[in-house]
């Protein structure tokens, strides 16, 4: 059953795993400042993994099933794996700014383990792989959130996230068990046949509901979102940046595969359920974000709101012929990609301010443009893009999602998206106003001046590069978004969906 050739397709995953183990080993056998080495190992690993990813693409662009149908290598998984490798690399450079030597090496190793889980998750073709991959992704993330273990808030956040995550995992396993019991298989593709033969009987819907709830937790959809703001606020900022984009998008990718593959026969029910959840998520996420005064909490609620936007796309997906044309899945892929970059960038700038003022309060952004023009300009790009202002990538993403919603007959959901986006301008643009149109508080300026030289030059430059790359991509994918969309469309066309 297991062909030796299968291993050739998982070389990227093997490299990531090897990098993680090397980092652990390195931590055990060396002393002194190992920051450069940690970053180098991780970046070299991720770079060569990305290279292998594209060298070992299935020749005819079709989906290849590996390991007796446990894993699939297709355009869909390649699209997301590329994004995750990029995000993990950015996160490690970001972490080098935040952590001293010893925690950084832990941070890097945990990041690589979680990356491995994410890469497997987007290629999962079987519930067994999916579940293992989810846990491989999630457990290192719980630790990442609590990495600054001397900080009470960090530990609280990690414990809460872990406890609730364990609860969600239990729900997921229960749902998988029901699905298996009903269909006699754990394969996603074969599940669809089993479900189709049973029709929309209550037990199928029960299993579906459990799985939707568990994945709803992972993507932070209302009402399973409550952990999000606490976790982001408590987590060290680089970890928060990674958690807010990586696991969320990975879980979204699995959700899209589940609703278009395993539970495809129940598409109509899924659409209604996801549409309601998406509407609640957009409304609550955006309204709650208005009331926040802590930038990481605000970004937490913002990420909930964006979960809602992506869920609109997934709800629309399940309504239409998957992969047949543009609408649906590619819009979710596009949105996941640009969302990840702009949100990550926003956290990176939040850290610049945190390093200057030792505060995550929104008021610390006051007059940022005066003291650090480039981070302020980048933050303006992120905020405007998150709002959905043309010509930035967030606008294009929303436009594509809107179109798939309208095409799927979900006009009311499209209207909700537009209205809540307008509401979101309130809290996003407030940051822009604070940065550009208000003068900074005197004490903040003083402490900024005092703390500014804290970060060493090269590391600070690397961090600026993270901000610049994410901001540049946010602008570029807005102006030449067609290329990314074409990639997403090609990825979906050649995938197991």
């Amino acid at each position, binding site marked *: 059953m297991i062909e030796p050739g299968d291993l050739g397709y998982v070389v990227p995953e093997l490299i990531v795993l090897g990098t993680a183990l090397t980092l652990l080993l390195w931590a055990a056998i060396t002393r002194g400042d190992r920051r450069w080495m940690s970053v180098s190992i991780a970046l070299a690993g991720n770079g060569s993994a990305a290279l292998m990813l594209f060298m070992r693409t299935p020749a005819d662009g079709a989906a290849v099933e590996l390991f007796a149908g446990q894993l699939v290598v297709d355009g869909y998984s390649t699209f997301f794996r590329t994004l995750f490798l990029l995000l993990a690399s950015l996160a490690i450079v970001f972490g080098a700014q935040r952590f001293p030597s010893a925690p950084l090496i832990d941070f890097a190793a945990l990041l690589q383990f979680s990356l491995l889980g994410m890469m497997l998750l987007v290629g999962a073709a079987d519930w067994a792989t999916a579940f293992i991959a989810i846990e491989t992704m999630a457990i290192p993330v719980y630790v990442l959130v609590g990495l600054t273990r001397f900080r009470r*808030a960090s530990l*609280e956040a990690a*414990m*809460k996230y872990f*406890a*609730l995550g364990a*609860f*969600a995992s239990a*729900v997921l396993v229960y749902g998988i068990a029901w699905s298996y019991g009903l269909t006699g298989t754990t394969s996603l593709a074969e599940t669809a046949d089993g479900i189709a033969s049973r029709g*929309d009987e*209550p037990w199928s*819907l*029960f299993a*579906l*509901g*459990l799985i*939707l*709830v568990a994945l*709803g*937790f992972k993507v932070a959809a*209302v*009402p*399973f979102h*409550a*952990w999000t703001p*606490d976790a982001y606020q408590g987590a060290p900022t680089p970890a928060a940046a990674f958690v807010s984009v990586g696991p969320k998008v990975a879980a979204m990718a699995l959700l899209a595969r589940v609703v278009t593959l395993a539970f495809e026969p129940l598409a109509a*029910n899924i659409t*209604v*359920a996801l549409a*309601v*959840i998406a509407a609640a998520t957009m409304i609550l996420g955006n*309204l*709650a974000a*208005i*009331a926040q005064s802590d930038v990481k909490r605000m970004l937490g609620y913002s990420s909930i709101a964006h979960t809602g936007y992506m869920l609109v796309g997934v709800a629309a997906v399940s309504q239409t012929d998957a992969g047949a*044309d*543009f*609408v649906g899945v590619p819009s979710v892929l596009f949105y996941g990609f640009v969302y990840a970059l702009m949100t990550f960038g926003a956290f990176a700038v939040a850290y610049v301010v945190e390093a200057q003022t030792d505060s995550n309060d929104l008021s610390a952004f006051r007059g940022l443009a005066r003291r650090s023009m480039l981070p302020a300009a980048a933050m303006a790009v992120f905020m405007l893009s998150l709002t959905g202002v043309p*010509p930035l990538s967030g606008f*294009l993403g929303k*436009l*594509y999602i809107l*179109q798939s919603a309208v*095409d799927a007959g979900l006009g009311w959901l499209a209207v909700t998206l537009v209205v809540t986006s307008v509401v979101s301008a309130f809290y996003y643009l407030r940051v822009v106003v604070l940065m550009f149109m208000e003068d900074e508080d005197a004490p903040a300026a003083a402490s900024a001046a005092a703390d500014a030289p804290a970060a060493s030059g090269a590391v600070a430059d690397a961090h600026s590069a993270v901000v610049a790359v994410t901001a540049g991509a946010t602008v570029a994918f807005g*102006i030449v*978004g*067609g290329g990314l*969309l074409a990639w997403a469309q090609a990825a979906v066309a050649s995938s197991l969906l």
Partner: protein
Amino acid sequence: MLNAPWIIPLLPLAAFAVNGLFGRRNPRWTGWVSTAAVVGSFAATVALWIASAGADQDESLLYRWVASGGFTIDIAFLTDALTIVMLLVVTGVSALVSLYAVGYMDHDANKPRFFTWIPLFVFSMIMLVISDNLLQLFVFWEMVGLCSYLLIGYWYDRDSANAAATKAFLVNRIGDFGFAIGIILAFLEFGTLRYREIFAGLGSADAGMVTAIACLLFVGAMGKSAQFPLHVWLPDAMEGPTPVSALIHAATMVTAGVYLVVRMNPLYTQAPEALLLVAAVGAFTAVLAATIALVQTDIKRVLAYSTVSQLGLMFLAAGAGAYTVAIFHLATHAFFKALLFLGSGSVIHALNDEQDMRRMGGLRRKLPVTYATFILGGLALAAVFPLAGFWSKDEVLAHVFLKAAADPGGALTADHGAGVFWLFYATGLTVSVLTAFYTFRMIVKTFHGAPRDAALHEHAHESPWVMTVPLIVLAAGAALSGAVLGIPPEHGVIHGYLEHAAGVLHLEGAGAAPTLILAVVSTVAALTGLLLALGAYGRGLPIPQRARALAPGAETLFRQKWYLDHLGDGFMVALTKAAAMLSWGFDAGVVDGIVNGVGKLSRFAGGQAGRIQTGQAQNYALLMVVGLVLTVGGLVLFR
């Protein structure tokens, strides 16, 4: 190379980037960078014009930004005769004004900012007229509005400049709101925003919808082109530097509304009611603004009201179905009004920023070049034979006359109110008299008589060559453009040329009009006004006093601008108050409600941020369980 339209907007965009990035360090060069780029644009436009001779139109897709399903957003160029005429006017006048501004802004400390916005404006204006679809036009419509806002408020340390910029911004929002709704309706009705496809879809479109779209687009045009009742922003916009007034608020941006109506002319031809609205608003605005111009004492404000009035005449022409004539008048007006503004700027520059005509007088010997060119511009504005304004304005009136004569019934009939065109014709003649009168009132008060302020007069000096050369070039245009473009009437160069844009431009046949008689009538009207002004202000004849006695309330009415600013301000104040109340209510009700609600919720959940372990995680879990029950229950119950 010759047929490369993209180079036309590219050069000003590059100048914007260069001046924006490096201008602060090299302020001396900013003006020349801007001028060189715009001159290059003009040259490229001329090249395009020559290269495209004979071709009907050329569409080139520059960049397809969004293509999803049937919906596309393009950046595309449509170059037909109409576009090229507009481009020639825009880049030509911009080049001269930019050159002039090199001298005018020489002593200004912030001129890098000035020469950053000017090329950005030129770029946006080029992209506006070169667009092949309504969406691109709208985006750059907003961009030119933004540039206008920034340049009106250029001297941001003056409260009046800030207030004027805000007013322009707010009034234009009203117009743009209508415009945006019109565009949305157009998309819903035609499924596309490309002009060509819209026109192709007109045959099967709902008539009421077409009228609604035409009217809404005209609302946008009213805002941008300062038509009653949205004209109130333009006179205040004179707070900006004079080259800005000449370029943006006389020659180019404010004519965008006229361009819009002419561009969309097949749509308007299908909507006679909308055309009647266009004509009526244009005619009323023309006379309204002309009367206010009679009593202004600020030289730039006279010109501002004159601009509003002339724009009204252009809309009147368009409303009469004479689209070509509207563009003809737009082109000649660009020459002579830019000339008059720049001339007034030369005067203001010579008098240390004095704009009040009551402190001028006798400047003719001090500023000979300015005086001579100003006279030419004034004669052109007054439409005196054979200067530019004569040819175009005469055609406007002739077409209105023809439109009126086309309806023998002479009443509001099925021909959609041809009868009222007699009224419009009379209005046009009145405007002719008034225009000549206020123009020569301004000239006499500024240049003739005894100096009213000796100290200012003492220091007055002619402007440097960078300022006088544009004046001379524009004066040549003001003198000759009408004759060159418009002889013989109805069959001149511009008429023949614009006919190339067949299918885009709808030409009204001139017929066997008694052209000569009409020309004589309008010349008599112009000369009447001119002579009255010379008599009143040159000879001191008691004409104004008599007029006052005849119509005692009129002067006050004009001075108070027909009380429209008060109305407008009142409306604005009310609007602001309402908005404030609303946002306060929103703040108190919704935002505070959310804040308090979230606070209450977290108290209900049993802990504040500091006491999280006491059980908030359980409550989160409880929330999840509730969600689980709802999701699974909902799925099962509503399957």
